[in-house]
């Protein structure tokens, strides 16, 4: 089976100006949204307590609210359905510092006459741990971007590295913006998804860069626009197919993976699409914006080649004993 018209070279550069302008401003908006509104941090980062219950029948949510409101500890607690009508999640900001006292026991005794239920999960995260996890998360995100930038710079060119980082920041910003808009809570899993995206969405970019590098070596065409158009067009099928396979599995995770990893799978789903889009329309065309010059690159290649030949010449002369 084949999906793609193979001989055609699409003019990505023609539309890229428009796409770059639109989505980079979207990314900028997301960043503003991030500073203005910020993530809704889950208890992993803000600290707090979550108790999850599963009733044998439909959970009597009103009775649960009423019973819990009588206890000071649960004042301001958010009580909501979780995944199914039998399951309930109770969430509140306070945490207890003692090892031997337990919220689970407390909930069990307060709600003892609300029906038969099972305490499935109790998560308590103290404020110190929360802020530590947040710092570590930011560190991991920044370091992985830096790591990728350095790697791309070593394997390709500096302008490739800069363009790839702009693409990555763009992807992460828009994904984060969407998370804020859709009220997806920032949890450890969502953070893991974002970090995975950083590592994954660069893949398609690298496939395209790899092709550009190859084209640059063989082509006589000095026009960067043509080189980029050819490279993106030639790699289009593999870019979309590789994203498609990952999209399939992330979709199954989203549909079948259960409520607990919804945050993770939703973020991945979103990010995979944005990452694919940006690889095609931003990462390569942005080289043009950065003023990457084909002539300069070719001159550099030629110089390298010349140096190599010179060296070999020197060596052979040396071996012959003429120097």
């Amino acid at each position, binding site marked *: *089976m*084949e999906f793609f018209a*193979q001989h055609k070279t699409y003019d990505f550069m023609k539309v890229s100006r428009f796409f770059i302008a639109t989505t980079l401003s979207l990314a900028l908006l997301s960043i503003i949204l991030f500073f203005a509104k910020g993530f809704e941090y889950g208890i992993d980062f803000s600290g707090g307590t979550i108790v999850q219950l*599963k009733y044998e029948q439909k959970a009597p949510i009103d009775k649960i609210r009423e019973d819990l409101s009588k206890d000071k500890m649960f004042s301001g607690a958010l009580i909501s359905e979780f995944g199914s009508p039998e399951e309930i999640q109770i969430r509140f900001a306070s*945490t*207890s*510092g003692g*090892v*031997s006292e*337990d919220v*689970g*026991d407390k909930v*069990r005794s307060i709600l003892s006459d609300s029906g038969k239920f*099972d305490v*499935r*999960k*109790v*998560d*308590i*995260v*103290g404020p110190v741990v929360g802020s530590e*996890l947040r710092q*570590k*998360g930011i*560190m*991991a995100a920044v370091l*992985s971007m830096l*790591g*990728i930038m350095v*790697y791309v710079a070593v394997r390709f060119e500096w302008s490739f590295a800069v363009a790839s980082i702009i693409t990555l920041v763009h992807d992460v910003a828009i994904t984060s913006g969407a998370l804020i808009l859709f009220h997806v809570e920032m949890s*450890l899993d969502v*953070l*893991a998804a974002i970090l*995975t995206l950083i*590592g*994954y969405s*660069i*893949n*398609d970019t*690298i496939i395209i860069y*790899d092709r550009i590098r*190859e084209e640059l070596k063989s082509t006589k065409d000095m026009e960067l626009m043509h080189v980029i158009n050819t490279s993106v067009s030639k790699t289009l*099928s*593999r870019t979309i*197919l*590789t994203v498609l*396979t*990952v*999209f*399939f*599995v*992330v979709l*199954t*995770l989203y549909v*079948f*993976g*259960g409520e*607990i*990893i919804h945050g*993770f799978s939703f973020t991945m789903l979103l990010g995979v699409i944005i990452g694919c889009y940006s690889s095609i329309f931003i990462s390569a065309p942005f080289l043009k914006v950065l003023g990457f010059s084909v002539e300069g690159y070719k001159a550099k290649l030629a110089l390298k080649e010349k140096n190599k030949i010179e060296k070999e010449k020197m060596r052979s002369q040396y071996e012959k004993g003429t120097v």
Partner: protein
Amino acid sequence: MTRGKFNYRLVIFLIAIIFGVVMSIPTFLQSEKGAKVSLGLDLQGGLHMLLGVQTEEAIKSKMKSIASSIKFFAQSGDIIIDDFRIDEELLSFTLLDKDEEKKIDEMLKTVSGLQVSKEALHYTLSLSDQEKQVIREYALSQAVETIRNRLDQFGLSEPNVAKQGNDKILVELPGIKTADDEQRARELIAKAAHLQLMAVDEKRKDRTTTMSPTEAAQYGDVILPDARGDNIRHILKEIPILDGSMLTDAKVSFSEMHQPVINFTLNSEGAKIFGDFTASNIGNRLAIVLDNKVYSDPVIRERIGGGSGQISGGFSVKEAHDVAIALRSGALLAPVTLLEKRSIGPSLGADSIKASLIALITGFVLVSVFMLVYYRLAGVVANIALIVNLFLLIAIMALFGATLTLPGMAGIVLTIGMAVDANVIINERIRELLRQGMPMAQAIEHGYENAMSAILDSNITSIITSVLLYVYGTGPIKGFAISTAIGISVSMLTAILGTHGIYQFFMPRIEKSKNLSLWFGMKRSH
């Protein structure tokens, strides 16, 4: 039929298959023997806690025990010291007789890390920063050791107790099934088990209900509640006669009233101090204090030699048993606080396993059907590599003794999608070359060659982020990082080397065949 061609790639791939299948058997059967992937707390249920160790408390208690030994030294040498007090981390006293100065100085020199400043005969003692650091570190490692001992004696399977940073302890208890067990485990961990034998201040015993703690401190006393209830109070000499560090054993037995009691034994040094004290304090009372609660305060009738004592005080049998475990495994030098706790019930874990298995199987079926339909035989080859990848992933995780968490499962599902990427890249390259009219055999070789750099670069960037996720992630996230990192690394063996080997094996047939549609799923029009 043309015979296949064996090549080194295929041989390595076959070895990898055997290795992967054999090494993953213990995991699939969850057998007792052999390295296997164990399920994380979030999948099998259990308790995860991050405890903070208040190491500063250990410094204070060290000062107290230094105070005890100075007092004992002074009493046994008939040296009179006055105005003896502890203020947090400072210890001060005044020596009455200048002739004794030398003796006291000699004694103080034997205490390591002690800084002594003197104004005439008024001594102020503190610990050096270096010594404080040693105490902090020791308090942490001692707490880890103690908690581990207690949990081992409690009889839980595979408790994991580990240091985290400078002042934290990670405790993981898989397989706790009931709320009752969890409660006992938590109490056992948190129990300071700090045993002190203290003298009752007989001079001020009439004022137990009226004296304020600040007034008590002026007399060098401390007010502690009774174990039966906070409304009963005791005025005790602040500096204990001896503490639990001199304890060698603690056992549960039953009193004449059939009440459980705890018998403890002291080491020789403790026994001597205890003997001397009781000999010189006949008629006075001695308080047995556990975790700052007075359990009993019997009157001393005679000198007690042999160094053994008893704690009684309305324990239930279970309680007495747990207290004895805690005493035996030693006191926590520094109290612990709860920083993070995650307890997952077994039913939730089972649901998570089910959900992620469904996602895994569905994801696998979707991807492999897609590859088969899109690439025909090349898809079959890629799918073989994918299956081997899964086996190898599990085998290597088992070898490392990795735990499988829910995010780890998500990582495996994701690996399925990412592992075939390499084959997509290679196959698309081959198709491109075939379209240019290159013979199939040659196109395959060139396809692999050309695709290599792109695959390597993209996989390495993924591994970079996995490593950072592992370094900066916690708990289950580490599991995710491990499974994706191993999955991607293994895919380079299976998806690149393995599939190449398979093509080379079939090369004689490929060379004869002109069927691009069958081998690479291309339209016949080319």
